[in-house]
């Protein structure tokens, strides 16, 4: 299909919207209501373009213009400008944007004037300022002045929709992105317009937005109406250091951008990764970051003669470790690591364990058996049947839930163009028809339960067996769904995998091959998939994390079992955790926001971590900490830094993580293991993630309820004002 945009001819697939045609041709139109992953609406009327198409004669030939060879199909222009986000481009269509059309330029400037009529001029205090679509577009396409000689609309200016999201009703331009987001993406009708016409505003009647995926509306709001309350007034957009990286709170591995200012992590916004999280992240990933800048350990701590942990230098800590482990056979030292460590860190630890010949090696949390994923998240979204076994996705992998919901509304993935994801995919519609019969949930009640057409209560541990050999009508129906589907996906959660053994893995493999189902076994930890490839499980005669007390001495990195080893205990962590308080030496660690490295998500995608500029004093990542430990033990450190660890990784599992790009790449490691695992209950939110003082919201609420109003500067008298 050929389309002409401002005289530039572009070749596009059929069904492309006019707005994507314009962007494909390198042009630009302003838009507010359209969003890549939401249905086109046509409400803001900013993306007006002039358009025209050739017409055919009754005999099928084109109506021509001009004489002889110079004749070209005559273009019949629409009499009025059309919204390009809701118009489908057709063969031979001609489009004129503001670049070549006076009419369009005036229409857009006029529309911008309307949009700004009631928009307050409080850009200086608005957190969106500097990253605001309205600001940018007003500058590019607006008149530069308003002829509206009246007072602007006044409404609630700080209305908390939840603890995390705050609404400024005056700033709202009614693009309806947030309303459509809730309805279309997480499938919750919790936010909608109230009133009509010029009085329209958004509100919820549900006593606050549900925590889960609510923070995404702060990303998609084109103005500063919906704002991240955790990052409120923490900095202006141009002051942040933006670091694109990967979230490692759960095994999904969403793309995020970490915004730090002055050494503090102030805000996290979603990044776009079409293969993983599209443009959405969960509330824990977005708002659960205050711990990264609060009460951090910045120096090593060493227990003195009085039994108190006192700050020390790294050299003093090394000395203390050396003294504490004196006489201990090196093979008796336990090495335990949290499952959100990077692949490079894991490789360094595995190499040190090899060097020490250590037996007590483990990572936590993990399942007893490693089941390699065969489905990708895109497979989930485009499946025609999904069966979820014993998973509480809200705690284990929230964004996986969004991809399942995407499957329920048809699995329409917006097209991709040279300019990125389609801005308006006309296949997406408001209030899409959902297919709940394609989803079966087996297990306990969860948020996904309400969306499923098949629900079976089952105790997780034998759920898989019961699905393989259905014993009730409900299960038979689920099995029929699985058997009848062409692209089924089976998702196993913690409840189904708890205590699972090799036979469970075999049963699963059998079920998958019979039904043709692809499988995702949700890893217990954010990088469990990656660490499983390394030899980080108890070796012959070794003990796991659950038997830490029996280990003669241990080095524990970023794990908080709440107990110490039998003897000398070194803890490497970001905060003074319960375990750290019991330790003999505490070494400061960095969070995953400050690391460079690679993790592997639940579908086996290698994703890069990049370090944000967060102040953490002398804290060090595991690789450098292990060099200190090696020094204390008197052995040569296998890797002294990131580059060395990458080489180790290359040697042990044959993957070069130095070349992993931002979007990530799928990779399957050959190695797998079966080893009894410590019990673990997935929990996304931890107490310290919410540690910031949240009294303010309640205080504002009380004050507003009490009829209090903000003191304001006396307004300058305006000529022509009427009210």
């Amino acid at each position, binding site marked *: 299909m050929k389309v002409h945009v401002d005289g530039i001819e572009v070749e596009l697939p059929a069904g492309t919207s006019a707005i994507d045609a314009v962007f494909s041709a390198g042009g630009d139109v302003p838009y507010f209501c359209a969003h890549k992953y939401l249905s086109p609406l046509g409400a803001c009327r900013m993306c007006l373009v002039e358009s025209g198409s050739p017409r055919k004669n009754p005999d099928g030939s084109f109506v021509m213009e001009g004489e002889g060879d110079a004749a070209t199909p005559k273009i019949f222009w629409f009499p009025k400008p059309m919204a390009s986000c809701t118009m489908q481009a057709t063969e031979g269509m001609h489009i004129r944007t503001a670049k070549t059309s006076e009419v369009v330029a005036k229409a857009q400037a006029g529309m911008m004037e309307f949009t700004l009529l009631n928009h307050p001029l409080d850009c200086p205090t608005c957190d969106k300022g500097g990253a605001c679509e309205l600001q940018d577009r007003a500058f590019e396409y607006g008149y530069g002045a308003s002829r509206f000689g009246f007072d602007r609309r006044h409404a609630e200016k700080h209305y908390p929709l939840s603890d995390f999201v705050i609404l400024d009703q005056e700033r709202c331009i009614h693009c309806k992105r947030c309303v459509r987001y809730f309805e279309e993406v997480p499938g919750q009708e919790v936010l*909608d317009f109230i009133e009509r016409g010029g009085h329209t505003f958004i509100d919820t*009647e*549900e006593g606050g937005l549900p925590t889960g995926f609510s923070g995404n509306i702060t990303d998609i709001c084109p103005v500063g109406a919906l704002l991240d309350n955790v990052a409120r007034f923490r900095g202006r957009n141009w002051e942040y250091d933006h670091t694109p990286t990967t979230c490692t709170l759960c095994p999904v591995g969403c793309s995020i951008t970490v915004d730090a200012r002055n050494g503090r992590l102030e805000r996290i916004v979603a990044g776009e990764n079409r293969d993983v999280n599209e443009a959405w992240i969960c509330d824990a990933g977005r708002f659960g970051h205050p711990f990264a800048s609060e009460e951090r350990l910045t120096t090593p701590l060493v227990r003195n003669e009085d039994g108190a942990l006192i700050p020390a230098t790294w050299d003093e800590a090394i000395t203390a470790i050396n003294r504490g482990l004196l006489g201990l056979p090196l093979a008796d030292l336990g090495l335990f690591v949290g499952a959100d460590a990077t692949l490079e860190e894991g490789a360094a630890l595995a190499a040190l364990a090899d060097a020490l010949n250590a037996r007590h090696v483990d990572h936590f949390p993990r399942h007893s058996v490693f089941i390699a994923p065969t489905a990708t998240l895109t497979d989930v979204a485009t499946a025609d049947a999904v069966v979820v076994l014993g998973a509480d996705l809200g705690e284990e992998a929230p964004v996986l839930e969004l991809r399942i919901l995407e499957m329920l509304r048809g699995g329409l993935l917006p097209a991709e163009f040279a300019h990125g994801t389609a801005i308006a995919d006309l296949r997406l519609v408001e209030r899409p028809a959902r297919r709940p019969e394609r989803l079966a949930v087996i297990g306990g009640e969860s948020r996904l339960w309400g969306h499923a057409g098949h629900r079976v209560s089952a105790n997780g541990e034998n759920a898989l067996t019961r699905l393989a050999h259905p014993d009730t009508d409900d299960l038979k129906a689920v099995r029929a769904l699985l058997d009848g589907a062409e692209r089924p996906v089976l998702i196993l959660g913690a409840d189904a995998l708890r205590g699972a053994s090799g036979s469970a893995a075999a049963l699963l493999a059998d079920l998958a091959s019979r039904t043709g189902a692809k499988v995702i076994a949700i890893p217990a930890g954010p990088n469990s998939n990656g660490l499983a490839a390394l030899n980080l499980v108890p070796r012959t005669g070794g003990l796991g994390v659950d038997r830490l007390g029996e280990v003669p001495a241990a080095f524990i990195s970023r794990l908080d079992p709440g107990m110490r080893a039998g003897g000398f205990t070194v803890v490497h962590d970001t905060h003074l955790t319960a375990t750290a308080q019991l330790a003999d030496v505490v070494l400061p660690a960095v969070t995953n926001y400050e690391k460079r490295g690679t993790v592997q998500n639940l579908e086996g995608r290698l994703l890069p971590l990049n370090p944000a500029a967060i102040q953490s004093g002398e804290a060090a990542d595991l690789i450098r900490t292990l060099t200190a430990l090696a020094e204390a033990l008197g052995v040569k450190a296998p890797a002294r830094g990131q580059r060395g660890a990458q080489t180790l990784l290359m040697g042990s599992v044959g993957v070069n993580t130095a070349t992993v790009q931002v979007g990530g790449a799928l990779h399957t490691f050959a190695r797998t293991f079966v080893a009894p695992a410590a019990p673990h209950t997935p929990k996304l939110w931890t107490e310290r993630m919410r540690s910031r003082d949240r009294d303010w919201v309640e205080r504002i609420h009380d004050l507003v309820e009490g009829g209090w109003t903000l003191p304001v500067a006396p307004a300058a008298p305006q000529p022509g004002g009427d009210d």
Partner: protein
Amino acid sequence: MSYFAEKQPLVADIFSRYPDSPQGRRSALMPLLREVQDAEGFVSESRMAEIAALCGTTATEVRSVISFYSTYHTLPTGKYHLQVCSTLMCALAGSDELWDHLVETLDVQPGEVSADGRFSVQKVECLGSCGTAPMMQINDDGYYENVGPSKCARILQSLRQDLQPLPDNPVPVTVGADGRQVLATGQAIGSSVTGLHRLPEQAGGEA
């Protein structure tokens, strides 16, 4: 206290009008709201939640719909809710003066209920009674048309005694009993419906 708990047949009747699907259930929203408002005069928050549950949606959606339409009330109205049409045809017939008169004599502002709990007033847009302006609607009971000063006084007097006069829906009769339309002069002109079936033949005959 649930409003619809004891009205299952009514609820079932309303649902039976729409398809048996989630979308169809949602369609019952407006009839259910109408039921509540007819019975209680307004829709309270607890009723919103109840209707939301019946229609398979959320209270947010119900409030959104209520607030969109102008005839639903979320605040109690007076026993007699006087709605005065204020759009052009009524305005040309003096509805502004009628409105001012009501607000003044009843001593009530829009959104309020008069001290005796009897009256509330609302300015509404065109009620489709342009030929018989000015007009007002009392509750949902019916139209009171051609409300001149003296008729207005009569209506208010009756309402004060809680004797609501019957609504009048005067049909501007322009067609006589024989089915002929009547000119301003009173003269019936044209054919009558009774003779109509012969028309095509007649027309053919004349040609």
